[in-house]
């Protein structure tokens, strides 16, 4: 990666990063890095990542970072922001951490309009633990715990996070869904999220992402699943009041 394509706030010492080939995390973190560079926030940002694949980003940036688990990244950032409101707090997690085990934290932070930015990576599976069904697994999608395809009658329908949060957020909170298929658009959404935080409001960006390791897909099939099947169910959009 050239100097031009690597965000300034990326920690060179931890590159190349540790994600699998074809994983979308690197692109989400690139979009975040570019947004932080553009807003010149590296000097006052704290980044927290969760358990699962996101934890591989624990030393990803030049700014302070930490790692926890089970979606508790959200309350850690809530506490940190209240302790030191000058910091820009970014909580980074997967769909399991944010939409399953840590959902009460995500919803409560949204309800309180806590001025933090949550970035949630939706790749439709629990990836680090070996490809189990996630709240975001698509109907009929095969995973280790839905080996015959997700049965929505038995397990419910996939969660649409930003749409769900829209029902509870403050009118000036920022909600969006982006995709690693459109990195510059994703960067713009993250930028707006960070700006909402600076204006004192909650922000949440879901990033549609890829997991060829657990999807067991070729490069072309990976991209097709992201753009077609995920894109059909999860609409890339800003969800403003």
């Amino acid at each position, binding site marked *: 990666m050239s100097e031009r394509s690597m965000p300034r706030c990326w920690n060179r010492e931890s590159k190349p990063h540790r994600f699998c080939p074809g994983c979308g995390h690197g692109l989400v973190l690139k979009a975040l890095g570019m947004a932080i560079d553009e807003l010149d926030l590296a000097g006052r940002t704290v980044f927290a990542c969760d358990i699962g694949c996101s934890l591989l980003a*624990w030393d990803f940036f030049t700014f302070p970072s930490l790692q926890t688990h089970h979606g*508790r990244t959200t309350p850690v950032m*809530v*506490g940190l922001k*209240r302790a030191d409101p000058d910091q820009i707090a970014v909580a980074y997690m997967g769909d399991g951490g944010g939409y399953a085990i840590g959902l009460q934290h995500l919803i409560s932070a949204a309800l309180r309009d806590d001025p933090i930015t949550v970035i949630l990576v939706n790749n439709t599976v629990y990836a680090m633990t070996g490809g189990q069904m996630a709240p975001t697994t698509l109907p009929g999608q095969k995973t280790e715990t839905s080996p015959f395809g997700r049965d929505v009658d038995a397990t419910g329908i996939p969660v649409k996070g930003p749409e769900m949060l829209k029902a509870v957020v403050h009118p000036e909170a920022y909600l969006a869904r982006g995709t690693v298929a459109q990195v510059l658009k994703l960067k713009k959404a993250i930028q707006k999220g960070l700006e909402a935080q600076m204006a004192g409001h909650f922000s949440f960006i879901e990033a549609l992402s890829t997991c060829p390791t657990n999807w067991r897909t070729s490069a072309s099939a990976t991209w097709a699943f992201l753009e077609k099947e995920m894109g059909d169910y999860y609409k890339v959009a800003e969800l403003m009041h």
Partner: protein
Amino acid sequence: MPQTARSEQRSFMTGNEVVARAALAAGAEYMFGYPITPQNEIMHYWRRLAPRYQRGFLQTEDELSAGFACLGAVLRGKIAFSATAGPGTVLFQEPLSMAEMMRLPVVVIVQQRGGPSTATVIYSQQEVTLTCFGGNGEGLRLVYSTSSHQELYDYTIKAFHQAWRYRFPTFVLGDGYQAKMREALFLYNPEDRGMGAVPARPLLGHKGSNGNGEPQLHLRNAFSVEEELAEILRKHLADFDEAAPYLEEHEFIGEPGANLLVVAHGIVGRAAREAVEELRREGKKVNFFRPLTLRPFPEKALQQALANSNRSMLVVESAQGQLGSLCRLASGHEALQRFDTFYRPGVGITTEEIREAVTL
């Protein structure tokens, strides 16, 4: 800012108010709390008093959030605390385990209630094992057990100091009786007794961002290989062992040549002390031992006390052997002459009952 207490102010109040006053006096800056009986009034008093002293409060969605939010605040150098009980203490194990791993000095006051599960909101001493060893780790915590409102005040203040000095998460273990009953005590400003400020500082931040010890730039909680974890744990365990002699506290009444050592902690320790004092006035050769720290446990002091008591002990507690197990472990390799127990899980114990349990 007004002073949190007049110098040596004689007061009469509930234990929960004592805790809130002590946290204020210690300079605690933020409380993250979630309602659970019998600790609720700690939050109530703190919430009413906090604005006067520019301190913060947030009622979170659950105890997990309260614990983790404390950790976030602690990471940026704020003196943060919470209070809980019973099922709440169970939920606190997750943030407390992270605090052990990352050495984050969070303070949690536990007003023990009956267990297991919902059980009673009243009283017990059943959260000893949970506070000492509840996490998925090695019990790298400090646990104080108080027996009076004065101790509740003194040791809540001390908990903040020791947590930040040694960087271990710290519990103050009270109970429903201590929480709800009123008792006389002296409130004071720690500075008036020569105590400096709690040595708080940001633990996560940019290099050079504070003078008093460099913060960490990247903190993690996950390790790729066994050896990596073993190395960091070796260091944490060595720090804990090294600090233990400075942390351990106990009370002992007696002298060499006694026939029995009565051991109890917390509010039961108070009833046991009274029973032993009465028996001693009657010429009985009975000694008394009360651990003030349950973790680290005052092992050497207990062994010395046992040596003075014919290596015979009676453990009294409102639980089924949680203190008993700690005492057995701490009693050393040499066989005990007697190991008597008086266990009343979830039920209060009186001086008279303890007197009757003593057989010489």
